[in-house]
């Protein structure tokens, strides 16, 4: 097969600089497809020796028109799409989106749904943090730690597959409720996984926390101050690693977080080591929250009794004309959301995950905008890369946990 010569292909980006700013510096292009960048991101870096002088970060290689696509599907049909934003913690996206729609419709979810969503959101956060920490450690050569963490992550995925039927993209949220209730024995297995989680994260702590090589690569690398982090829009574990205890679960409690006892772990100086440690501590806090939630989980219905959004039971659809019509209208026309607009945010695994939705009435959104933490974080990434070594790009980028699906939408 003959391919067109490379210099005839148009360049998808226009770098901010093509000439070095000082004598002897070179411009190096890292990515978009590079073994050390998990995620399609392109970093154009000016290097002076091994030192990064300045960088120009480009994303968008995974752009697939999420927001445009949303404007021609019913509110319910979007749930599989929002799953694919942050595919490491898809359930958090589901619940954040559903809550935005529920706010517009004026729906209050049932207590069981509220507690179950909280539990599953924390469970997803564990999976997301495990992924991030494991990948970052592997890129530094810590293969054993990586395998320990993804072993647990795989238990979590398999366990969520028992509940939802899928390992990664669950499509489990519903406007006004959830797809189905817990299967038998699910909570018992959950308890077993949490026990193993403690054991495996303990091993990782023992392997790397005081490891000279790890500390040398992570401590004082990619430092960002709290004021700088706020200026560049950082939220979530990165902002907390700078010492600012800002967490939406604590500051503006939503779902059932107001009823839970948990701490907001913070770092000391906002470097890579702090970001690693904050994520590891958040895994512990999430496990602590899940144990409380299992105790508190109330009985009762899972979905609200509201014919505007909740599907009627299948048995009735086949036996009763009203339910058949209801089902048909919900599938074909979508839930009728009153005109209005709302911005609703959850504490995603990476930071503030916001949905700004506009409805003009009817079953299809006028606009769905996702405020994705990864996109904002990549926008300030150069603050953490400039001035450090070329080799530091890898752990710093790993600690940001940029998720292409959510960044590029």
């Amino acid at each position, binding site marked *: *097969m003959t391919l*067109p010569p490379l210099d005839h*292909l*148009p*360049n*998808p*980006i*226009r770098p*901010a600089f093509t000439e070095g700013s000082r004598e002897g510096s070179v411009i190096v292009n890292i990515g978009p497809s590079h073994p050390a960048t998990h995620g399609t991101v392109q970093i154009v870096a000016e290097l002076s020796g091994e030192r990064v002088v300045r960088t120009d970060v*480009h*994303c*968008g290689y995974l*752009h697939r*028109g999420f*927001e*445009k*696509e949303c*404007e*021609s599907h019913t509110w319910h049909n979007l749930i599989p799409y929002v799953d694919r934003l942050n595919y490491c913690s898809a359930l958090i996206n589901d619940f954040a989106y559903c809550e935005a729609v529920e*706010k517009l419709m004026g729906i209050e979810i049932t207590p069981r749904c509220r507690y179950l969503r909280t539990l599953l959101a924390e469970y997803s956060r564990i999976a997301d943090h495990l992924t991030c920490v494991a990948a970052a450690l592997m890129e530094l050569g810590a293969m054993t730690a990586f395998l320990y963490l993804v072993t647990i992550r795989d238990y979590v995925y398999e366990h969520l597959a028992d509940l939802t039927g899928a390992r990664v993209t669950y499509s489990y949220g519903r406007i006004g409720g959830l797809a189905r209730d817990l299967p038998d024995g699910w909570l018992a297995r959950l308890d077993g996984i949490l026990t193993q989680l403690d054991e495996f994260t303990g091993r990782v702590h023992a392997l790397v926390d005081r490891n000279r090589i790890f500390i040398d690569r992570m401590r004082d690398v990619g430092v960002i101050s709290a004021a*700088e982090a*706020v*200026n*560049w*829009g950082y*939220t979530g574990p990165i902002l907390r690693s700078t010492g*600012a205890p*800002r967490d939406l679960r604590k*500051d*503006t409690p939503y779902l059932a977080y107001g009823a839970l006892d948990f701490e907001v772990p913070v770092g000391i100086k906002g470097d890579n080591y702090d970001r690693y440690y904050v994520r590891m501590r958040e895994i512990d806090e999430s496990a602590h929250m899940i144990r409380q939630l299992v105790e508190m989980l109330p009985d009762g219905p899972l979905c609200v009794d509201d014919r505007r959004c909740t599907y009627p039971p299948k048995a009735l659809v086949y036996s009763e004309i009203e339910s058949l019509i209801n089902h048909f209208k919900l599938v074909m026309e979508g839930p009728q959301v009153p005109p*209005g*607009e*709302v*911005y*609703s*945010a959850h504490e995603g695994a990476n930071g*503030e995950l*916001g949905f*700004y939705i*506009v409805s003009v009435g009817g079953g299809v959104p*006028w*606009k769905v*905008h996702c*405020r994705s933490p990864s*996109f*904002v974080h*990549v*926008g*300030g990434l150069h*603050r953490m890369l400039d001035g450090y070594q070329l080799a530091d790009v890898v752990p710093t980028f790993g600690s940001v946990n940029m998720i292409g699906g959510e960044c*590029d*939408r």
Partner: protein
Amino acid sequence: MGAEVFDPIREQLGGDALEAAVAHGILVLRIDRDRVLETVRTLKEGYGFDLFLDVTAVDWPEREPRFDVVWHFYSTRDFVRLCVKTRVPLADPVVDTLTGLYGSAHYMERECHDMYGIVFRGNDDLRPILLYEGFEGHPLRKDYPKQLEQPLVPYREPKP
């Protein structure tokens, strides 16, 4: 929630605003586009709205002026959100940039320019960010057909 933060803002800025109402716990200020920069500076310096969350636009093709530009802010001191909105016409979709106040505005204004063609006066780096260099049109405008393809690399004929 938030009344003790919102009431002084409405008192100071509400007179010049076209709308100032609390919806779903968020204070929404609709203002003239010439007042955006000054209003946001007041909000940041006087009321602690230090986190620039988001800027996007909403397209209303039947309406004149056609676009809403919508900003969201968060206060890490009072834990409340605030929304600033303004309207711009298709012929002159220009608003002032907020990059002088918030670093995070850089990327998000580029995205908004990509998707809706809103021009942020004073932001000299409006290169495509989610789209690619040479992309024609603004895909989130309602008159951009969803199925329109603009392949950067020409499609190859499948082998027989």
